[in-house]
């Protein structure tokens, strides 16, 4: 009797505590979406608003008037999309070679990749800029942003781990049947690791979509800027339009929140296997 009472109290306590934390965590996202639909005088009240307003399109028009945000979203889609697809291809080819073949230099190459994982990307931004912008002349060019993203050690590491679990008998059998190595990779190995590709793909897409410093350095003209850069430029203006800015933040965030709702499992798998293996 007493025991069940304390266990019920414990249950209540745990649920109440978690509810408070979750609410605090959701408030910024909620306020972003709800403020996007209200005029600035509601925003200036600084109150927790529950009902959506009717000013979303008005705020969007203000946003679009200050920065070409539709174009920025388009640029972000192109950059994140191509970086992800090409990044997956490059990383899975390299990961496959490291996992499946014994060859001279394999161990030192793998050690090098582990070492690179430990070098912060901020450290190479200056020379990268000089090479890509000054020497290759790729400023305001999609390739200028995308190409350096492809040298992603995390991806190679992640794909190598996935290919290590492949049943080597299946691959050997295909080889003995006369299939080419490329065909074995493309039509047997890749389909088996599809879940890993999905996890890595989502993580790469989100990371490239969200990146700020690198696209800011390469895409200096408004026509080529990505969504985060457009937001950053809005905040630098003397007269900040808060409603418009919340529209911008929502447009670049809400699709990912929905994606996260649907693909939570893959995203979490990507983070934990990338981090713990």
């Amino acid at each position, binding site marked *: 009797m007493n025991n069940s009472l304390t266990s019920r109290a414990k*249950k209540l306590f*745990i*649920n109440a*505590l*978690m509810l408070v934390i*979750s609410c605090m*965590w*959701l408030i910024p996202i909620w*306020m972003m979406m709800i403020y996007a639909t209200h005029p600035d005088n509601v*925003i*200036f009240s*600084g*109150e927790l608003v529950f009902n959506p307003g009717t000013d979303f399109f008005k705020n969007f028009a203000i946003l679009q008037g200050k920065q070409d945000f539709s174009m920025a979203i388009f640029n972000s889609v192109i950059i994140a999309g191509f970086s992800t697809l090409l990044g997956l291809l*490059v*990383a899975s*080819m*390299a990961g*496959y*070679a490291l996992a*499946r*073949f014994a060859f001279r230099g394999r161990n030192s*190459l793998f050690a090098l990749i582990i070492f*690179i994982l430990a*070098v*912060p990307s*901020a*450290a*190479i*931004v*200056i*020379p*990268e*800029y000089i*090479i890509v912008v000054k020497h290759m002349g790729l400023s305001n060019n999609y390739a200028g942003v995308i190409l*350096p993203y*492809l*040298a992603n050690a995390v991806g*190679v590491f992640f794909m190598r781990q996935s290919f290590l679990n492949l049943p080597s008998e299946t691959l050997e059998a295909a080889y003995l049947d006369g299939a080419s190595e490329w065909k074995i990779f493309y039509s047997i190995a890749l389909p088996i690791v599809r879940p890993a590709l999905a996890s890595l793909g989502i993580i790469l897409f*989100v990371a490239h979509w969200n990146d*700020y*410093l690198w696209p800011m*350095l390469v895409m200096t003209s408004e026509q080529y800027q990505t*969504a*985060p850069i457009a*937001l*950053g430029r809005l905040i630098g203006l003397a007269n900040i339009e808060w409603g418009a*800015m*919340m529209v*911008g*933040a929502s447009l*670049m*965030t809400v699709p*990912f929140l929905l994606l*996260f709702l649907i693909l*939570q499992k893959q*995203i979490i798998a990507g*983070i*934990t296997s990338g*981090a*713990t293996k």
Partner: protein
Amino acid sequence: MLRNRYTPYAFLSPYIIVFSVFWLVPILFSFAMSFMNTRSRTWQFDFFLNWGRLLEDELLWQALKNTFLIIALQVPAMLMLAVFAAVLLNSKDLNFKGLHRFAIFAPIVVAEAAYAVIFRLLFNDNFGFVNNMLALINIDAIAWTNSSSGATALIAIGLTWRWTGYNAIIILAGLQNIPKDLYEASELEGASPWQQFTKITLPLLKPAILLCLVLSTFGTLQLFTEPTLLTEGGPGGSTTTVAMYMYSQGFKSFNFGYGSAIAYLIVFLGLTLSLLQFKLFGGKPDE
């Protein structure tokens, strides 16, 4: 069984090319630049110019101090919160787990620029929601962007909101790897939940927490976007981080050599701190 000996290299070649051009060359180039005077018309080797300047540049030391203050305040608090959240999320007594998981984990897909903008609004000194709520419980408005302690706290709060879920995911995976029978056995021996937490959970979580500690320290050492968009490094340079200082040296003063030296300082500090953390907290769990 003969296979073409070039096959592995063919598969590796795209990565090796991008890796060489966009990683290896830059990092070596940067190292060389750090020993050059890059502000003369033709770049010249000047061995101690930049590295010597590191030691006596007060603005750099201020930026280092700011960065380490944020790390010291934010990382331990966030990791404790992440462990706490992971334990709650793992509890069999918790209802609506999916909803709570979404609330804590969702920030990992929110762009730095997006949440910086939101936090800048919610924590606005004059009309922000947070100061409004504080007024309800009779706390005076906090100068989140106009005082150095407020600005530092604001960045720490923002980072905690954004990254607690990420760390909680790693810790939750660690929790789920702890064998359940350890708890059952200790329960039979009459251990209290607190004893179970300190004697079983924490020691077995140590590798996961250590990983989070290293990743968070490394990440915060490179902090750039949040202070740029939330506080613009202010007030009075009190939230200018080392990465922001490197950026301003490299891309505002166009002093690539000195910027490269600062970049190498960041790498050096990051690796040293990680090694130190592995030394201090590594080792085998006690059990």
